[in-house]
């Protein structure tokens, strides 16, 4: 099957390309990219006039909830949401039930993804068995089964000695180590320690809870000589630490999520559980520091930490509500806000969601060049729309952005030469 995408503005950061071209896809790969291919015969022609074409986005932090929590999300619905959001590859975290700490669960996920998923799924295995923080998981076997990284995301590995060993062991298999940095005692609260917690009476989480573990995990990694990736950073202090450490040790990378640079802790004052997330939404000064960190490259990657939840687990008192935001379908629009504000240009933004994630995980994706896999998206950076959680393909409707007017929408997603998502209003 051949697909011709014509007249689109192709932004391919890997090859430093930003120009109006036509793209011809044959089978599962990109065959040709040229100024004018309108003569070429194709089974499907897509007119991308006025639109942007980019490599499919890669999300390094997603919760697909399967196996074990299928009422919140399945690999099928999660990947459909990813496709709608413009993501052609996702890394799914290990806090499933059973925990993905061995090859059987990894194989299960890979098989489900093959059979029912619509985008590429790369499992992230647990660091410790059962996420208990006591014994190392079978990383080698998980790697062989398809895992690309390890993380005890949801929490930190409390035992520093054990985490040290985990990082050493992971090097054998070239597994990326993704760190959720949170001191569990300091992090026991539910909102940011600041004016919002002062006024709302909700238990606070000081920035310190994140920062001391960021410092620790980088120190451990440097000691071992292992690459380390800090995920969902939220504080000014974390940025400063990472910025400083990167000067000394070049194997540190970091990501943040759209909600951390779009909302502040003020959003939690209404006790709306859609704003409950871990780490919590922070103060305006942290948001400003995150934007600066995105601008100067301290933050390499933007991920979603897509955390779908059923209504029942959110429709309770704030203290009891599950943490998390269903973010795959709103990410692109919120990220384009950074371009609008002048924090990043389009190429820089796309780089943080394609090239950099691919490099972290050593994946052969995130690039739009002849011979490369045809993972592409076509999006409008201008289309205005209102976020409607009722229209989400994800089972998780938990978003604080419902009703928000945004600009920028993904219209078409192609994975391996197959169209997996097409906006109903797009030809």
């Amino acid at each position: 099957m051949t697909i011709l995408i014509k007249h689109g503005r192709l932004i391919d950061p890997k090859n430093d390309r930003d120009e109006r071209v036509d793209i011809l896809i044959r089978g599962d790969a990109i065959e040709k990219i040229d100024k004018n291919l309108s003569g070429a015969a194709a089974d499907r022609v897509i007119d991308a006039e006025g639109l942007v074409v980019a490599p499919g986005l890669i999300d390094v932090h997603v919760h697909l909830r399967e196996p074990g929590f299928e009422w919140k999300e399945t690999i099928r619905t999660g990947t459909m949401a990813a496709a709608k959001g413009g993501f052609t590859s996702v890394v799914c975290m290990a806090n499933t039930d059973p925990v993905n700490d061995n090859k059987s669960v990894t194989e299960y996920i890979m098989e489900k993804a093959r059979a029912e998923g619509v985008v590429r799924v790369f499992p992230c295995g647990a660091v410790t068995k059962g996420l208990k923080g006591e014994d190392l998981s079978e990383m080698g076997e998980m790697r062989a089964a398809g895992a690309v990284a390890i993380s005890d995301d949801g929490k930190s590995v409390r035992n520093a000695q054990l985490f040290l060993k985990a990082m050493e062991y992971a090097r054998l298999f070239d597994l990326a180590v993704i760190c959720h940095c949170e001191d569990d005692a300091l992090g026991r609260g539910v909102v940011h320690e600041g004016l919002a917690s002062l006024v709302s009476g909700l238990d606070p989480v000081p920035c310190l809870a994140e920062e001391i573990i960021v410092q620790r995990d980088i120190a451990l990694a440097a000691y071992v000589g292992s690459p380390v990736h800090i995920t969902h950073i939220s504080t000014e202090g974390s940025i400063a630490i990472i910025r400083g450490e990167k000067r000394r040790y070049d194997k540190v990378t970091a990501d943040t999520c759209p909600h951390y640079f779009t909302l502040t802790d003020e959003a939690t004052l209404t006790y709306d559980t859609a704003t409950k997330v871990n780490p919590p939404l922070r103060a305006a000064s942290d948001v400003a520091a995150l934007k600066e960190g995105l601008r100067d490259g301290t933050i390499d990657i933007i991920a979603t930490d897509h955390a779908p939840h059923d209504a029942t687990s959110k429709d309770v008192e704030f203290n009891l509500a599950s943490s998390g935001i269903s973010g795959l379908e709103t990410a692109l629009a919120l990220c384009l806000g950074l371009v609008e504000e002048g924090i990043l240009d389009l190429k820089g933004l796309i780089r943080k969601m394609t090239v950099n994630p691919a490099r972290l995980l050593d994946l052969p994706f995130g690039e739009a060049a002849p011979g490369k896999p045809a993972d592409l998206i076509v999006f409008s950076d201008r289309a205005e729309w209102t976020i409607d959680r009722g229209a989400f393909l994800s089972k998780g409707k938990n978003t604080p952005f419902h009703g928000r007017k945004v600009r920028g929408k993904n219209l078409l997603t192609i994975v391996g030469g197959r169209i997996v998502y097409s906006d109903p209003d797009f030809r």
Partner: protein
Amino acid sequence: MSWTHKDLLGVRELSREEILFLLDTADSFRDISRRDIKKVPTLRGKTVITLFYEPSTRTRVSFEIAAKRLSADAVNISTASSSVVKGESLVDTGRNLQSMRPDVIVIRHSMPGAPHMLSRILDCSIINAGDGAHEHPTQALLDLFTIREKKETVDGLKIAIIGDIAHSRVARSNIFALKKFDTEITCCAPLTMLPPGLASLGVKVTDRLDEAVADKDVIMMLRIQKERGGTSYIPSIREYASLYCLNEEHVGRARKDVIIMHPGPMNRGVEISDAVADGPYSVILDQVENGVAVRMAILYLLSGGES
């Protein structure tokens, strides 16, 4: 002026004028409690449900008496013996209650935001009788009523609030309410019980009791929240009492006409000595009486009809 709020979830969202209007209204209702026939037909036929997820005698009884003195029907639900024990969620409890068409639900809950949840899903008026460490608006209002009664005005006063401020909804509500007037507030507690950034609310902060009480018109003591995780913030009640228990010597440092307040129930010998609690400056029992009047006023103002 007229009352436009459907609920009373906190004092922070009230204006100074609204607070004064409420206190003026409470003044008339207090007279009812002081005469032989302690009843008026004003809320006849209205149903008031008190839904208490945390134990309380004084606040619950205060609301019940307030409702009954207005001729409303008062129904009490304390969750130790209710469907909540069987695992019913707050949302379901609320919806079930709404089917019985109450006019007002008074809720006390251990978690901040619970009354706000009910307010979002129910049509009837919701009164917050205390939600975790967030607010206890009727307490602050009756405290203000008491202060105004004893001092004639709230403006120009120096007030000390002493105790576990970090976990106290009474402290928060009082700070919010008093800051709408021209007051100087000093908060005092061991550092572990003072939330970071407290000064940003416009209050002075100290961890020394003798400094806090100096030259004050009003001293408000808070109870040690033994049930709200109090023990990891102080090594022992005994040590706390040795440093922060208000005694006559401290009262002597305040102004000559100081009034001593406490929301109750008191831990005698812990935050306040017997001599002070029962002494001539204590207005603690007035607070209790005023509580009924203030709650009558709130029930009255929230129960209005449509026109």
